[in-house]
């Protein structure tokens, strides 16, 4: 199957150039999301390795972190969720490029909106956690 040269949808703001740029954007979005997930996976495995080797010592440090630890776990989980949404969105855009179905393009943007909203919310929570940590340290 080949990528369509001209758009099949009746969306007026989509033209020949759009498909070409959309394809490049899709590829890099996917690379970013997959590599982020792989790096997070390696990080979790490394932490598990550290805990298994220096079990008591590392666990004591982790328990001492308290609020920060809860946020780190929350952030990692949210970041993984955002990466999955990005991959899904890129897949939908790819489907649009191959089939020309405009619903795929619309749903890809809805997924992208969801991922940015999630990332924005977790960033605001992160900022609040940081402020609380600074206030506590004073």
């Amino acid at each position, binding site marked *: 199957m080949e990528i369509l040269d001209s758009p099949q949808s009746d*969306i*007026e*703001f*989509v*033209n020949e*150039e*759009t498909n070409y*740029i*959309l394809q*490049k*954007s899709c590829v*890099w*979005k996917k*690379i*970013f999301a997959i*590599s*982020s997930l792989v*790096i997070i996976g390696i990080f979790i495995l490394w932490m598990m390795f550290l805990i298994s080797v220096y079990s008591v010592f590392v666990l004591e440090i982790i328990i001492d972190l308290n609020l920060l630890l809860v946020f780190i776990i929350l952030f990692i989980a949210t970041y993984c969720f955002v990466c999955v949404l990005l991959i899904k969105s890129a897949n939908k855009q790819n489907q649009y490029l191959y089939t020309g179905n*405009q619903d795929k*393009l*619309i749903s890809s*943007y*809805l997924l*992208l*909106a969801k991922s*940015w*909203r999630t*990332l*924005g919310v977790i*960033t*605001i929570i992160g*900022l609040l956690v*940081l402020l609380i940590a600074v206030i506590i340290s004073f």
Partner: protein
Amino acid sequence: MDNSTPADIKKAIKTIRNWMLIYAIIILSLMFLFMLQNIAKLFAAQTHYYLINESMVNIIMSFLSILCNIILIVNAKAYSAFLKSGQAKEFNQSLKNDYIYWLVSTLSLFITIILNIIFK
């Protein structure tokens, strides 16, 4: 022109633009502070090579992050221009910025990891 833009996609782009801007401004200001902190650390490090390496890596890391977030703000502006006009030209411009953002983000992700492995 507004009627030709499907309502759902326009609404989604509006959401993307708003959250993108919030995210970019927060991270940009935090990374700027982080960069200043590490510049101060670099001057205080004197001959402690470990500290010099660490602060240098952090400065490069924050610089790359600042660059990504500037692209993100430019992207949000392009989305705003598209929402106003609804033209293909503006939509393509926002897609171009989107592509540049993901490209720079991926590269900075790998550069950061490589620098961390080598110097920390």
